[in-house]
């Protein structure tokens, strides 16, 4: 991980770090690299991935709406809305 790669991650995640934060973050990546080595000391070639700690699959429930919130309610928490729409800056010229 270098500054350029970190800048790319910042752009992708819509975040910006200060210079001081960048230095700390690069140190953190170095530390994580070393930690990752301890994981690679374990041979997991024959080990299956464990995505869920409980062996549950295909969890479904009845396809029935249970929380019929109104548009007004859903927009109560919006930073800016107008006439039932979320307001955003102009996207196309």
């Amino acid at each position, binding site marked *: 991980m270098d500054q350029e790669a970190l800048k790319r991650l910042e752009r992708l995640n*819509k975040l910006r770090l200060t210079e001081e934060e960048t230095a700390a973050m690069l140190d953190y990546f170095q530390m994580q690299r070393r930690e990752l080595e301890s994981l690679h000391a374990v041979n997991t070639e024959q080990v299956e991935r464990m995505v869920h700690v409980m062996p549950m699959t295909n969890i479904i429930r009845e396809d029935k709406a249970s929380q019929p919130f109104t548009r007004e309610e859903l927009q109560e928490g919006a930073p800016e809305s107008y006439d039932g729409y979320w307001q955003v800056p102009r996207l196309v010229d």
Partner: protein
Amino acid sequence: MTTMKVYISEAQATENKVALDDMILTTKLPTTAGSRMLDDYRSLFDAEVVTRLETAGYEIAGKVNVGEFAIDLLGETSYYGPCEKDGLLTGAAAELLERDEVKAVVSLDVNGAPRRTAALAGLICIKPTYGTVSRYGTIPAACSGETICVTAGNAETCREILSVIVGHDCKDGTSLPEDACERLKTEAERTPVKKIAVAKAMEAAADEAVREKIEQLKTRAAKCGIEVIEIEAEELLLAKPAWNILMSAEVCNNVSRYDGIKFGYRTPHYEDIDELYTNSRTEAFGFLLKSTVLFGSDVLSTDNYWKAYDKSLRIRRVLSEYLNRIFGEVDAIVLPACGKEAYSGEMVKENPYIAYDESLFTAPSSITGYPALVTEGVQLMGNMFSENSLLDLALMFEKEGK
């Protein structure tokens, strides 16, 4: 900046008052996840635990401050500031329970903060088996491991509250069937803890004062007629790096919803949509959360997915199978809940990633979903659904200590 740390109702303390940490949604009080992003956010619905507690006659007396998205050490990254006493970090739940303002605190354990809080304050905390308490209506951070837990001044209260909140919930896709959840109810049958094993590798990683607490627990266990053995348990050391990777990846995905459009904080400084997103997130998120998002994004990238993320999922199975073997031989594993006797804000300033170092002790339970109990300042991990046995043990220690 708002100075709110704890919302608490003005009614007099009652037997039935319970506080929630600020990762649990309530309609009557704001839910902020300790983040500027959700400052004063009001949910449209209550979390399932809230419904269950209120139905059973408990009053939700207040909300307890948490670190931003509950991933930190002891709440120190909260937008509303840390809870400190005599220069040391305490955790808001401990402060409330110490003042006897509530009976118990129900929290979301994402990266071990509730367990550390309980260990430092001499409280009891039960983090149940993953999937036994519905996470419906909690703010998601690291969904594959985060679990709702109960903290109180004694084991009986933890059991009482846990018994109310466990149960299947069809609104949570990871909720276990009712018959599995029933095993955590107060009246459920259980086998007593007869043999415990101290995890030496974990014990060695802690300070002397913490090791002393483990020695005291061993003495107390022996007095109660429990066999105490030692195991190396070096495998458990793998949990920290693997959990840090999985947690970061999940947090990265979960906080991608905060964009300054639909809800939450929106920056006043923007010219276009890209600036709106970037400035809103940059201004609202703290450094630890930003770091977690960036690291999580990196481990999910094409270059690192197999090396880091996929590897961690396999390590999770290695750990799970290891614990399954160990619990065939012993009833509980003893390990520290945190490596030090106390933490200060200064220590966090010196090492902003201290929470990720300290997750060494809490990650084994977080990544595998096995239950954990904190009592006597020490953590005990038990087999799946062994909460009642662990709580019986804590009760036995309480009686022995009197």
